[in-house]
């Protein structure tokens, strides 16, 4: 048994044990990231280990693994058992489309197949690392302890319970450690262990580990001495008497009652509908106009509805360019007596004899068949994505809002109990902006820059004397879309910009259908709320204040952007602090310098952190491989360094000692008690010839015999060069 070759049966057992450990990594990762197809990933790990066990050449095993990954991806996303060229084409196209997103750091929009590919690569690397630990290092303690820490962390800080895993991990890990230790001992003493002997040694190990494991498992256990850290951490973050309490759990999804917002909710990935559409769309259902300090209601109902039938041209804002008509085909899985629709809707086509009743006030299109509320299972829509001119948006001014008629008063409604600090905040956020659009944009951006956190758990419901928006803005700073959108609407209204609260669905994730078209899948998790603000001369325009969601509104940057323009700032985060700076009084400028550069640096860091880390990793890897391969390039360096040195004893000593080091790197180790003569004999046996012996004799003559002059320097240098060149071969 040498360092690289272990008994294959033992190796098989070790791989099996590592497989069990790796599975314990995958299980929580899968559960937490909501990933399916655990079997496919496990199979991949198994394939890697089996290939390794079979000592398959890399030029076979790498393509095999790669093909498996491609097959798995297309199986997951195209749901086909067999590979076909055209599908692979789609897949490759899809994967390639991620490259620019990677370049621009647009992590959120990376498609799922690509994520899967990355995950597979991660698994690949992990298995490689484990093989290295087992076969070369013969030490798995690091991986073992990482597994234990990982599982313990998961158990403590996530809803998953890993009680059963711990037992499995402890036993598997200890067995791995023990078996590896035996083979390490064997290697150390350079003795191969016969299988029988190995069994004799391993049986007590198995016995002790399994027995003590079972014993520990069945014994009654004392309760933890330390309190569970999670409640402590939470109370620390939120304060012990946190506002409100997240009483009941809800699940995500569309509901009609929004009078009491807040509270945590659970993920629910039930499919609501599928939309065959070219790009991401926000799917709107309705708006609400009245904020009650606890939630939303639709008051002063304007009952007027306009009736349309299938295929009729709808009345729509003339904002859009009819050249770019788009189609969206929806397939409903959950029945709604209304339609969900994209912005810029122009026409709805449905098979049934359906009537669409459009409420001007809420924007809702109810569907009635024969005078009764009914739902459509499928319908098609024509729409033109609204396109806004930044120039026009910039020209919106607050004065124009004065001239709006009384029907807009419902969109300026605010409860009397609204705390004054909400208004003050709204004013302070927007006072430096001129146009209505910029003010709205300032509020939209505010959340992303002020330490707000997106979370679905532990969100309080406001108490009777608390305001939902106030609580979110000033106390918890934690919430989901309802918190963000409601707060933005309230703040917009606080500075007299008409705004309403929109309900609907976020764009969702897509998969490819058989024709290679994108089909977006919208589940209950995509239920969403956002903001519409009225811009004079423009109309109602959607805004997206929720952290983690992207505003999909198309804006033409048709004017020159100046440095202190928030729009420009949005495009280039680095300009942001300058913009703030320019508004500060001059005498304050100096004291703000540190802060300015600090935030400049932080925002730069945030933006490029991925690249920085990647670059550092790449450089580190390059340096490492360069260092690892030094046995190859070092001779050239040494030759260049020492060749030109004078022909005397000192130079010879340098050369000789550099040669010793180089030989050591080349794998010819000299133990402490080995004399140079014995070593030279070894070296000469390795490389042939007698250069090393001759060099050593000369070196010893100088070192031990103090004869540093009677040497043939030219001859010695020649032999040194010859030998040092051979070490790289």
């Amino acid at each position: 048994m040498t360092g690289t070759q272990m008994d294959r049966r033992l190796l098989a057992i070790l791989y099996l044990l590592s497989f069990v450990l790796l599975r314990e990594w995958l299980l929580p990762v899968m559960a937490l990231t909501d990933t399916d197809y655990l079997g496919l990933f496990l199979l991949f790990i198994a394939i890697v280990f089996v290939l390794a066990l079979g000592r398959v050449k890399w030029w076979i095993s790498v393509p095999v693994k790669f093909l498996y990954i491609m097959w798995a991806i297309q199986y997951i996303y195209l749901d086909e058992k067999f590979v076909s060229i055209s599908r692979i084409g789609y897949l490759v196209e899809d994967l390639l489309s991620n490259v620019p997103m990677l370049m621009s750091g647009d992590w959120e929009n990376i498609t799922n197949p690509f994520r899967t590919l990355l995950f597979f690569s991660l698994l690949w690397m992990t298995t490689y690392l484990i093989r290295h630990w087992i076969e070369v290092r013969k030490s798995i303690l690091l991986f073992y302890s990482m597994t234990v820490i990982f599982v313990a962390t998961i158990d403590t800080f996530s809803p998953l319970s890993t009680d059963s895993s711990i037992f499995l991990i402890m036993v598997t890990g200890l067995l791995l450690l023990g078996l590896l230790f035996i083979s390490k001992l064997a290697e150390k003493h350079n003795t191969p262990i016969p299988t029988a002997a190995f069994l004799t040694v391993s049986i007590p190990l198995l016995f002790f580990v399994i027995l003590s494991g079972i014993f520990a498992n069945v014994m009654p256990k004392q309760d933890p001495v330390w309190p569970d850290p999670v409640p402590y951490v939470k109370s620390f973050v939120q304060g012990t008497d946190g506002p409100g309490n997240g009483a009941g759990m809800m699940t995500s999804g569309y509901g009609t009652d929004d009078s009491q917002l807040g509270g945590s909710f659970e993920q629910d990935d039930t499919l609501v509908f599928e939309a065959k559409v070219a790009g991401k769309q926000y799917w709107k259902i309705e708006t609400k106009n009245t904020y009650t300090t606890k939630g939303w209601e639709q008051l002063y109902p304007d009952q007027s509805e306009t009736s349309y039938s299938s295929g009729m041209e709808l009345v729509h804002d003339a904002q859009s360019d009819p050249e770019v008509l788009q189609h969206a085909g929806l397939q409903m899985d959950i029945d709604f007596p209304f339609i969900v629709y994209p912005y810029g809707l122009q026409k709805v086509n449905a098979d049934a004899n359906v009537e669409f009743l459009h409420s001007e006030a809420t924007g809702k299109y109810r569907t009635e068949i024969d005078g009764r509320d009914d739902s459509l299972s499928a319908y098609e829509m024509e729409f033109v994505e609204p396109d806004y001119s930044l120039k026009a948006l910039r020209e919106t001014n607050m004065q124009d809002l004065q001239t709006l008629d009384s029907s807009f008063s419902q969109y300026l409604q605010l409860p009397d109990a609204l705390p004054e600090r909400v208004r003050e905040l709204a004013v302070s956020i927007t006072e430096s902006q001129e146009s209505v659009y910029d003010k709205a944009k300032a509020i939209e951006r505010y959340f992303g820059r002020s330490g707000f956190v997106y979370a679905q758990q532990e969100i309080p419901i406001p108490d009777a004397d608390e305001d939902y928006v106030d609580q979110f803005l000033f106390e918890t700073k934690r919430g989901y879309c309802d918190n963000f959108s409601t707060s933005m609407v309230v703040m917009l209204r606080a500075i007299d910009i008409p705004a309403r609260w929109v309900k609907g669905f976020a764009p969702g994730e897509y998969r490819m259908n058989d024709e290679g078209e994108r089909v977006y899948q919208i589940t209950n998790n995509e239920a969403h709320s956002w903001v519409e603000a009225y811009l004079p001369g423009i109309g109602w325009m959607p805004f997206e204040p929720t952290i983690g969601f992207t505003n999909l509104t198309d804006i033409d940057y048709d004017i020159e952007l100046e440095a202190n323009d928030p729009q420009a700032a949005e495009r280039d985060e680095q300009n942001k602090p300058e913009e703030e700076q320019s508004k500060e009084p001059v005498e304050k400028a100096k004291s703000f310098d540190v802060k300015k550069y600090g935030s400049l640096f932080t925002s730069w860091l945030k933006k490029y952190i991925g690249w920085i880390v990647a670059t550092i990793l790449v450089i580190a890897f390059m340096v490492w491989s360069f260092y690892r391969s030094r046995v190859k390039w070092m001779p050239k360096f040494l030759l260049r360094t020492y060749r030109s040195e004078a022909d005397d004893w000192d130079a010879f000593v340098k050369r000789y000692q550099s040669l010793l080091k180089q030989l050591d790197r080349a794998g010819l180790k000299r133990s402490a008690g080995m004399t140079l003569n014995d070593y030279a004999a070894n070296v000469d046996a390795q490389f042939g010839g007698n250069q090393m012996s001759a060099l050593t004799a000369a070196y010893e003559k100088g070192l031990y015999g103090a004869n540093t002059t009677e040497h043939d320097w030219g001859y010695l240098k020649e032999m040194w060069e010859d030998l040092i060149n051979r070490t790289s071969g």
Partner: protein
Amino acid sequence: MNHTEKINRILTNIDQVMIGKRDIAELCVTALLAGGHVLLEDVPGVGKTMMVKALAKSVGADFKRIQFTPDLLPSDVLGVSIYNPKAMEFEFRPGPIMGNIILADEINRTSPKTQSSLLEGMEEASITIDGVTMQIPQPFFVMATQNPIEYEGTYPLPEAQLDRFLFKLKMGYPTKTEEMEVLERAEKTVPIEQLKSVVSLEELIELQRAVTEVKVDDTIKSYIVDCVAQTRDNLYVYLGVSPRGSLALMKASQAFAMLKGRTYVVPDDVQYLAPFVFQHRMILTPEARYEGISTTEIVDRILMKVRVPVDKATLR
């Protein structure tokens, strides 16, 4: 003719009668050049006498043999004063110790009193009888043999006495081909009688003097001291090597370096000679004996462990 050539002639001469014992011959010559004595521990009949006779013949030295028996007296070794009635005075009859090269056979079979008479002479290179001190003629080389298989009625040499020997050697049995050659040669005349001296006693004394001039670098001295120190600081060793042992190792290394044709000592010399110098100078603990660890093994371990000086850095 330089020193190494002379030494090589001695060795070649011995090779004519000794088969396959070049290493023992080298060590014996090394001891002779270093002015030390050799203790041979081996069974009878492996050529101990032949070796020492050949060595004596090669250097033209006076060879004496003392067969130690339990009833041997010190006077049988040193010599005795006998009254000469003709001259009306006591006349000293020198014992066998008054030779150049002496084979002390089965030294452990005689009484400690007689043993110490020989060993004192070895150390001092002089003997004192009836208040008269007499110099033993130079060169003076004793090869004592011990039979390791008989313990009944023997007096093992005490450790302090063993220290007087430079080397403790084992002849060992010849290999098959070597032994066949021994038989083959025995068919012809006994060659030992035909051996001629190849160097004179004066030349030998000159060689002994030249040995002291062989360069021992400070790094080598430090290496010797490190090795010796390790014997004193070893779990299995009850008594380590004395400073006399260090000195012996250095002298032997010098002689060996000259034998190998060098004017300076290298660590290889030290490593080669250390087992022969150390093994009779160490007393192992009972634990070592229970675990079956021999002195040779311990010396090997020490040599593996002690860092060989490969540059001047060890001195700093």
